């Protein structure tokens, strides 16, 4: 197991060397005080001795809850028509497991075009075990540490996060991160209230139809900026009153007609002849 740990951590540091642009590494260095290794794999560092038990526990959980779709060894299962029943999981990484299981998308309640978010079926320890098991199958993105997705950013970085968000995310998730429709009944979910860690993991792993935004191109710093922008937007007051769902002009149009309805009501009141005898007879 020690060998496995080395492989994971080795893979990670190799990735960091090759993919992170130099300034980002510097910046990370400033941000991370306890050393890059501890920052990137704190769980590993603390629980080295428990790895084998964790993975074994994860495998046990996997066989009960996941294997029916993903196969006994997570090799994936195809449908009769050759489509994915449950994809192979080697190499998807711990981050993917943490996202899918942590947001309740996995295990799926029923087959469908898209796994839906629901209360998670597993607790934090079980998710960690499942993640460790899946990570042991092949190298993939690991669960990000807290300082990767949270922490102070400058206002300039926040604004750049907004630019990244509008360039890469709003097309599906909407300008207010309220979500939007995709073909065939699929949809991009609302990002409001989603934890920073899960947003980071989603960008890193590209769950379901969402494209991947790997660290090689959209650097961890970029991701952190995006998350900071989203989180700061969540705490923004609604400057103009009730937000009406923040889904753009369609809902606004509905409310405009409501306003016309109110004004027509006023017109009915203005023209109502309260004391005329004709009114009484008609009643």
């Amino acid at each position, binding site marked *: 197991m020690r060998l496995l740990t080395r492989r994971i951590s080795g893979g990670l540091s190799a990735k960091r060397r*090759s*993919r992170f*642009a130099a300034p980002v590494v510097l910046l990370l260095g400033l941000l991370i005080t306890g050393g890059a290794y501890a920052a990137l794999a704190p769980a590993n560092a603390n629980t080295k001795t428990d790895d084998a038990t964790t993975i074994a526990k994860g495998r046990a959980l996997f066989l009960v809850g996941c294997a029916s779709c993903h196969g006994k060894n997570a090799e994936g299962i195809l449908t009769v028509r050759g489509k994915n029943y449950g994809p192979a999981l080697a190499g998807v990484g711990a981050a993917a497991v943490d996202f899918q299981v942590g947001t309740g998308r996995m295990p799926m309640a029923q087959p469908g075009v898209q796994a839906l978010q629901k209360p998670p079926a597993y607790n934090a320890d079980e998710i960690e075990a499942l993640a460790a098991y899946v990570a042991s199958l092949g190298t993939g993105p690991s669960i990000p540490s807290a300082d990767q997705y949270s922490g102070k950013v400058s206002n300039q970085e926040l604004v*750049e996060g907004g*630019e*990244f968000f509008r*360039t*890469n995310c709003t*097309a*599906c998730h909407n300008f207010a991160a309220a979500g*939007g429709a*995709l*073909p065939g009944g*699929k949809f*991009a979910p609302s990002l409001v209230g989603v934890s920073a860690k899960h947003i980071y993991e989603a960008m890193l792993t*590209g769950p*379901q*139809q*969402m*494209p*991947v*935004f*790997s660290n*090689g*191109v*959209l*650097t961890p710093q*970029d991701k952190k900026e995006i998350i900071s922008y989203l989180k700061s937007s969540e705490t923004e*007051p*609604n*400057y*103009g*009153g*009730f937000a009406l769902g923040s889904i753009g002009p369609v809902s606004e149009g509905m409310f405009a007609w409501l306003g016309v309805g109110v004004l027509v009501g006023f017109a009915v*009141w*203005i023209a109502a*002849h*309260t*004391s*005329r*005898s*004709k009114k009484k007879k008609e009643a």
Partner: protein
Amino acid sequence: MGDTPDSHLARPAPEPIPDPGLEPHEPRPTDVDEKAEKRAERQVASLFGLSMVFAVLFCVCYFALKVGNHPTTWLGMGASNVALGVCFGLALLCIGIGAIQWARKLMGDQEIVEYRHTAASSEEDRVEAVSSLMKGVAESGIARRPLIRNSLLGATAMLGLPAIVLLRDLGPLPGNDLSTTVWKKGIRVVQDVDGAPIKPEDMVVGQLVNGEPALFFENDAEGEPLYEGVRLQQAKAKAAVIIVRMQPDDITPLPDRKNWGVEGILCYSKICTHVGCPISLWEQQTHHLLCPCHQSTFDLANNGKVVFGPAARPLPQLPITVDSEGYLIASEGFQEPVGPSFWERG
């Protein structure tokens, strides 16, 4: 009113039931009961008084509540906007409701009758108008002097020309602009926003990068950006691209496009061929790209073919390769005009 019914208006016989005539007027409580009248009077006056209160409150809120990035908030809403809107709205509504109550309860409510007239003038007026006009026409001699009439008509018609010609400088002629973009051989494909260049190995399968030509992030010899302001916006409106990575086996390139990608990485124009919205709703598993404006859907694994929606033409593809440093570059410019159709497009 003092006048009489117009005999020219249609008077259909009231059949099968004769017209019983206007109902008699019945008084309102406020007409007969002095107490009710006083009550209504007080009601209207207090509404007007309330309006004044709200107008003053508006001014208080204007100065008391903070705006800007850290505004006073109530229930998570900008307090200034809400307070000003509510105070102003109620001040106005109180006046409106008061005035209408006044009209409904206290003003005379006897309906009165006015007679209508046909819209048409009387026959005598018409005759008189026509004869005046003919007299004027005759005195001008416009009918007798066709030379003057026609040359005047010609002259005024010609004045249309300067008016139209003046519009010519509204903008330059299109020339070849709609058919070209800034892409040409060797330009690096970089990530939008920060201009980071892209190496194939940085992209994993299922990845989407919103890209731009590196030119947009470069400076000229004097350190000024090559593209900024309007020129940047105009160039960007055509040159924006998306770069996606798929399993090479999933891609079915046209025969002449076999070497347009790098290890399953393909680059397409981001500008929809329908009416030009930038598209980046890419489904990594189906390889479909959806336009959020009108839902045209393109299959990026199949040469950008339209699979759904109102777009008529496939999404133009940008041939890419890697340069000596291993970064993605365009191996040629776009082979066809990007964006929406236009007449001369062919």
